[in-house]
């Protein structure tokens, strides 16, 4: 199971990667994509919205199942990965890279420190 050291995680299997002090990419973990199986599309209609932590910012549909996506920290959804519309399978093949889902501006930059680190997340799924 691939769990990069530099990211932070939630118990709902999202990851967050800080770009600078206040912006971050968010996606789902390798574990999550593997549990979901073949992903067929991502439905995110919250672009431009400011949301609290742990609110649903979208859903991901796999062949067999659908799963809600939770925002790890409070913030504003600034961008939805445009490539996923045509190639949702990137979430399966590259969950931490090309398969990122949204770019957000954090409401409070420090919130990310409250999330699980790689070691804690590894324990959760291990």
């Amino acid at each position, binding site marked *: 199971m691939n769990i990069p050291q530099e990211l932070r995680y939630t118990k709902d299997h999202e990851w967050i990667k800080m770009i600078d002090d206040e912006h971050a990419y968010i996606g789902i973990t390798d574990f999550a994509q593997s549990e979901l*199986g*073949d992903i*067929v*599309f991502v*439905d995110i209609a919250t672009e431009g919205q400011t949301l609290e932590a742990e609110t649903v910012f979208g*859903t991901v*549909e796999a*062949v*067999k*199942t*659908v799963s809600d996506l939770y925002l790890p920290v409070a913030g504003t959804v600034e961008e939805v990965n445009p490539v996923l519309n045509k190639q949702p399978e990137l979430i399966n093949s590259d969950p931490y890279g090309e398969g990122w889902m949204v770019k957000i501006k954090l409401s409070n930059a420090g919130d990310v420190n409250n999330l699980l680190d790689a070691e804690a997340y590894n324990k959760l799924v291990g």
Partner: protein
Amino acid sequence: MIKETPFIQKHLALGAKMAPFAGYTMPISYTGINDEHNAVRSNAGVFDVSHMGEFIIKGNGVLELIQSTTTNDASKLKKGEAQYSCFTNPDGGIIDDLIVYCIEENAVYMMVVNASNIEKDFAWLEQNNTYNTTLQNISEKTCLLAVQGPNATKILQPLTDIDIMNLKYYTFVKGNFAGVDNVLISATGYTGSGGVEIYFEDKENHADKIWDAIFAAGESHGIKPIGLGARDTLRLEMGYCLYGNDIDDTTTPLEAGLGWITKLNKNEDFTAKNILTEQKKEGIKRKLVGFEMIERGIPRSHYNIKDKEGNIIGHVTSGTQAPSLNKAIGLGYVNINHAALDSEIFIDIRNNPVKARVVKFPFR
């Protein structure tokens, strides 16, 4: 306690994703549902479906017992023929759907039932067994491998003298397969891609022997193991009902589109025949239909179905992104006035009405 099939070590060695299903730990997928689905549609795949239930019923009154508990007409079956059927409850609901195999006319039959219903079905047969017929539940010791796909019989043919390439749909033969005697090979399946189902007793390492022989014969053809995930997408593309989703104790065979296996004019009475006869006369009020999504979204079981005005007119019973068709499809019950082909319906996906259209089976 969760049960395992005799193939559990094979699944684990192949790295299958396992999950509990009907009391068994079963392989859900090996390499991914789309990949497995496409393998069956274009080539051949092997399913371990040993969790399914098998009953042998024989002796005194056997045909009477079958005729009085099932909707199809088993008196038509000759030795070596099989028939899709259902058990109905006193309200006309479906206790289970099953296949009846005629092993010896008027003497020995096998019933193959859903894993989740084995106890319920067997109890129902016992309760209705006023004929002193012998009933045996052989589910625990019976292995079942489904080998499905356009190349399935060609791959298996070298393993047996039985002419499986020319076995007619819904017929079966017993014989030697891969060096094992008394194997029942049936031209049936749940995929719509052709192939056979192979029943045999779990003893003397026969399970390993047959599994290994099938994969050795199929290796150069690229045969693949297939999990229950792809089994579901394959059957759904064909519009085949899944018990517990599309049919259950509250749905009648007429509502479910199973009128073709409900022989209201057979001589014998069967459970709820009068109710179903009445329902047919009056006309059903709701119907199981297939639909495809016009707007983007994937229907899932229990989603509401609405009309244009937003009134609830039914609910989804099965849905998926169909791997062979590259679109989202589903089954669901709708009020009869919305059941006609091409009717426009709306699937309530997370409080958004998403447009869909009633279509024919199989989905295309």
